[in-house]
């Protein structure tokens, strides 16, 4: 029985179906989770998908962070449950203080959707183990509030502890230190602004490519879960 990875749907989530598809393609079993239901239905890992939860009206992720399911996700994460927050999910993780810092309006003020070149900085999290450290990959971004910010001390700490997991090669939004994604100290919680679930199929991935550079995020966690359950 393949490990189960849950994908939370908040009102206003948009990329939940895509995250579920990516989980399926990686070979894990994909379990939809509902924001009102605190029960995680025994999943081995959780993905908080992209979108505009509650319209992102107050601050991206600010209201979703208080939904019943997040109580369980937060508690689980503190006990080592692997959690990946993509785009809006990353914002939810920051609002929940599972990850430091915050994501603010892009430097250019505009929503930006384009294929972005990234460098994987850390392959030592359960979500990035299938990458080679320093590997350059292409993953789409699509956000209006994707500019990572934190105070210098926090940024230095993230660098020092190797918790910056991916950096932009052409910083699209003024993110501090070109940060595209970070991990918590334990490495089980990862937040990422770009959308790996949109780079998992030749047919629909970045063009001209490479089209499937996002898949390792999902195979990484699958291998990890298989190894721990074995």
């Amino acid at each position, binding site marked *: 029985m393949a490990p189960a990875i849950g994908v939370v749907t908040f009102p206003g989530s948009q990329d939940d179906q895509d995250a579920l598809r990516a989980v399926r393609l990686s070979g894990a079993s994909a379990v939809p989770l509902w924001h009102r239901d605190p029960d995680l239905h025994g999943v081995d890992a959780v993905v908080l998908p992209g979108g505009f939860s*509650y*319209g992102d009206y*107050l601050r991206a992720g600010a209201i979703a962070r*208080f939904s019943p399911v997040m109580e369980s996700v937060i508690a689980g994460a503190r006990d080592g449950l692997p959690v990946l927050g993509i785009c809006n999910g990353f914002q939810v993780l920051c609002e929940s203080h599972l990850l430091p810092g915050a994501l603010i309006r892009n430097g250019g003020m505009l929503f930006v959707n384009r294929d972005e070149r990234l460098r994987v900085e850390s392959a030592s999290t359960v979500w990035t183990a299938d990458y080679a450290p320093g590997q350059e990959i292409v993953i789409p971004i699509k956000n209006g509030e994707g500019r990572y910010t934190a105070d210098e001390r926090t940024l230095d700490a993230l660098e020092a502890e190797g918790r910056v997991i991916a950096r932009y090669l052409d910083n699209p939004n003024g993110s501090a230190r070109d940060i595209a994604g970070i991990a918590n100290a334990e490495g089980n919680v990862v937040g990422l602004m770009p959308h790996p679930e949109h780079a998992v199929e030749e047919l629909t991935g970045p063009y001209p490519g490479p089209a499937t550079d996002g898949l390792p995020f999902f195979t990484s966690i699958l291998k990890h879960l298989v190894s721990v359950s074995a």
Partner: protein
Amino acid sequence: MARVVVDVMLKPEILDPQGQAVQRALPRLGFDGVVDVRQGKRFEVELDGPADEAALARVREMAEKLLANTVIEEFDVRVEA
């Protein structure tokens, strides 16, 4: 150096989805007794000169032209105490 504050709010008759989202969230967080929430913008404008009438007039013009969308928003300009 003077600080002028410009508050920009949606006109009362205009739908405010942002304020509504906040208001709907409050009870879930255990806050009752809030009958309405409106969300707007606050600008803090630092002038290099004094905030005299001339300066305020200029800031009002800024608000009119740039800070507020007067088709749906109204604004208020005042000197920060």
